[in-house]
């Protein structure tokens, strides 16, 4: 049975050209960038090229690229690193639909006496720029608002957020793990001071990411040691992964994006039409090109997922059916989905290799499965 993978938001395969690019750096050009000999210096040179490439892609004119182990580390470093290095200001602003690694970091800081404002979002997941503006105060050091939400695909208006942050003289960080190379990001135009990106969402390797920061920003490192990465992040550089990251920047083409948008829109239309108990979560405009998220009444997302899995289709649920009630799907909660429905969510995310055929097979199976589960449910009207 051929697998149909529709969970590209969770992680992507490494595509062949990225894989091939890394090969040499595993087997032959394996030097440690700290080494003064040729193997070390060669590696170092290649790593510097990737830094440059990332800066170009983001139009980062006055920024440093700090390589990290991924999105989680970059987000932790951005927030903790910044507040620890600037002790006088103790207030940060995030949204209610940030990724867990921002949210949990914020909760952790709250325990340490920091103040966190969690911005509301509307039904489609957008923050209210007015609320943002009003929330900024003298003690505010940072606003961290993700670009594309990983669950419902909402694309925040970075440009407007950046404008407000600039006016109010607070730093602006954005978590762009889901949008990097898929949506336009311009650090200059959007006035972004810090940005988190990673590779394993864009057909690059896992275990590598970057935090790009404006020159002059001070961070307290989370990882102390040999003083790598401008002293902000120690540890032997993961050269093959960095090379792969660099290559992965080129993977998603404009055509890929257009194709994903078309498929996405087609699927939304079909599913809403053919499954009467379905509802789209997230916006219809300003939505990440490859994200779909649906709520199905009366049934559980995990059961849909598992039945699809048994038929060879990989998707994700939207609900975090968790022992800790606070942790039940915070995004669903934030966009106003009542708790008794939040378990009925699934997320589908498309990749550059996704075909119309695959989506048709998926839709067909989804219809059957939803019907089966709905018939079985005691809650069905």
């Amino acid at each position, binding site marked *: 049975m051929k697998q149909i993978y529709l969970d590209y938001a969770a992680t992507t395969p490494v595509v062949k050209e990225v894989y091939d690019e890394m090969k040499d750096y595993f087997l032959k050009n394996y030097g440690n960038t700290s080494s003064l000999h040729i193997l070390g210096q060669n590696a170092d040179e290649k790593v510097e090229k990737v830094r440059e490439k990332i800066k170009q892609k983001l139009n980062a004119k006055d920024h440093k690229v700090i390589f990290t182990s991924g999105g989680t580390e970059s987000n932790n470093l951005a927030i903790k690193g910044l507040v620890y290095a600037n002790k006088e200001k103790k207030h940060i602003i995030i949204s209610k639909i940030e*990724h867990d690694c921002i949210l949990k970091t914020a909760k952790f800081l709250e325990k340490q006496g920091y103040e966190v404002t969690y911005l509301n979002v509307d039904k489609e997941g957008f923050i209210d720029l007015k609320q943002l503006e009003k929330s900024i105060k003298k003690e505010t050091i940072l606003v961290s608002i993700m670009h594309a939400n990983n669950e419902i695909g909402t694309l925040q208006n970075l440009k407007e957020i950046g404008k407000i942050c600039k006016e109010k003289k607070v730093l602006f960080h954005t978590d762009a793990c889901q949008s990097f190379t898929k949506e336009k990001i311009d650090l200059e135009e959007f006035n972004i001071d810090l940005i988190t990106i990673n590779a394993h969402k864009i057909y690059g390797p896992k275990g590598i990411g970057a935090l790009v920061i404006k020159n002059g920003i001070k961070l307290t490192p989370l990882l102390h040691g040999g003083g790598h990465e401008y002293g902000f992040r120690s540890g032997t550089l993961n050269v093959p992964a960095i090379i792969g990251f660099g290559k992965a920047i080129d993977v998603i083409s404009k055509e890929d994006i257009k194709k994903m948008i078309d498929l996405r829109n087609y699927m939304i239309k079909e599913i809403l039409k053919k499954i009467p108990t379905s509802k789209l979560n997230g916006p219809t405009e300003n939505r990440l090109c490859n994200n779909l998220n649906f709520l199905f009444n009366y049934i559980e997302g995990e059961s849909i997922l*598992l039945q699809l899995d048994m038929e060879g289709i990989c998707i*994700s649920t939207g609900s975090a*059916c968790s022992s800790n009630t606070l942790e039940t799907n915070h995004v669903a909660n934030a966009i106003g989905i009542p*708790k*008794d429905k939040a378990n009925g969510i699934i997320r589908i995310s498309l990749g550059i290799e996704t075909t119309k055929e695959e989506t048709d097979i998926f839709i067909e199976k989804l219809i059957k499965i939803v019907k089966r*589960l709905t018939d*079985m449910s005691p*809650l069905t009207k």
Partner: protein
Amino acid sequence: MQNIKYSKKVKEHFLHPHNMGKIKNADGIGKLGNPACGDVMYIYLKIIKKNEKEIIKDIKFQTMGCAAAISTSSMITDIVKGKTLEEAFKITNKDVAKELDGLPPIKMHCSNLAADVLKEAIKDYYNKQKNRKIKYEKTACYKCCDSKKEMD
């Protein structure tokens, strides 16, 4: 970290559950669970008396939930159909899991509530018979179940 692989039997019952549906004018109905937690289960009983014994002649279930909830529902209906109420009352959630060749550990205490629901249904039947009260302790956990899902 948390392997939630399901056994073959679980998968079978999950994909093709037995005794699914409602019984009209059921003699006993049990209902447990909470949609906010992701598992809701109803069990319907049809009882007949034979030689002084009350026997489950028919049983049906309706479940909203994950694979564990659905497969345990299906399995328990298989187990108790034709059994006396006394025998059926002795079935535990653990027994059901065992019949299914086990459940993933994180599912043992949450979605594995079929035996409790069955007891609820039997209780309901007894209640309707008057003067027959019955007590038991629920063994499933009715808080939100533990799962490792995080969005990535």
